[in-house]
């Protein structure tokens, strides 16, 4: 071994020892069931609260109002197309952010909103409401809506914007990558 390689070898070995010591110090406690935090480590919310009516009787084409309250750290309340039977209703406020204009509760982490919902056709449906906190916590709440009255129209086909975006997230980078590879080949090839 060359003499001038010895300091480099010592430095590399030093880093390896540190790396092994650091990774070896990570210990899991699979039997622990209590939440992390509460002692200043992490701030955790116990559970998000989400309340409104659990059952509603409604008439096709006639709107009803849901008073939705979310708290304990809630940042969003959403009633989006595509969840459960949400496509069978039109919703006045599909997404409400904490302290936005539609939120009547000015406290941070608490949302109160009145959402006007119109059933499109007869039947018994599940309307799904979702809330999320600033962290990774999310909760959903299902309401059973029994709709009667004059048979309504078939709900119009919904445009699944999220699905379109998910597909684009795969194909647009691949397509642009292929185009850039072709351009790169043309730029770098030698005549």
């Amino acid at each position: 071994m060359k003499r001038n390689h010895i300091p480099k070898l010592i430095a590399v070995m030093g880093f390896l020892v540190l790396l092994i010591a650091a990774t070896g110090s990570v210990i899991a406690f699979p039997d622990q069931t209590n939440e992390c935090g509460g002692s200043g480590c992490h701030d955790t919310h116990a559970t998000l609260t989400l309340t409104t009516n659990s059952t509603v009787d409604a008439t096709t084409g006639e709107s009803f109002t849901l008073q939705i309250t979310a708290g304990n750290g809630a940042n969003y309340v959403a009633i989006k197309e595509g969840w459960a039977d949400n496509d069978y209703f039109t919703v006045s406020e599909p997404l409400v952010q904490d302290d936005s204009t539609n939120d009547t509760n000015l406290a941070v982490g608490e949302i109160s909103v009145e959402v006007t919902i119109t059933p499109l056709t007869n039947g018994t449906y599940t309307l799904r409401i979702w809330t999320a906190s600033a962290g990774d916590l999310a909760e959903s709440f299902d309401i059973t809506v029994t709709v009667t009255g004059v048979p309504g129209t078939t709900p119009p086909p919904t445009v699944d914007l999220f699905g379109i975006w998910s597909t684009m997230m795969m194909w647009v980078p691949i397509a642009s990558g292929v185009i850039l590879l072709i351009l790169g080949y043309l730029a770098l090839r030698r005549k």
Partner: protein
Amino acid sequence: MAIHPVFVHFHTGILVATAVVALVNLLLRVLFRDNINTPGTRLSRIFHQFDVFIYIGSIIGFLGLIAGMVTGFMEPLYPIEALVQMPVMRFKILWSIVSVEIYLYLMIVRAKLGDRVWIKASSYFPYAILGIVGGVLMMIMGALGGIAVYGSSILGPILDWVGIPWP
């Protein structure tokens, strides 16, 4: 604490400036080909300084975009479940990935070819035009980020004029 804005403003400004410089260099290359190839002329010096500016801008763009994406997903007030529910954020996520590809392309092509990137039309046209496209994408994404946070942007009338809908 919001960390994403700290990581995006600086390189967004540089990349928009890079797009303008790329446009100027493209025009110089097309209109004054003989002057920029004459060593010692002022135009030649400016051209080559602009070329270095675009190269450094591409490197900053690539690194800055990755930093911006990482900090964007770490933003405590916008969990990923909420981000993907907002069309503005979906637009930003998708086109920031394409922008990373664009700046990676610019970086690799310029690193491999050096300032010879400006010799062939098949290399300098994509190089300059992608630099401009990247800058415009960054400008639009920055404006949409501003709209998401503040509710408006000075680019609002331009987005309207181009036909890009914003909430």
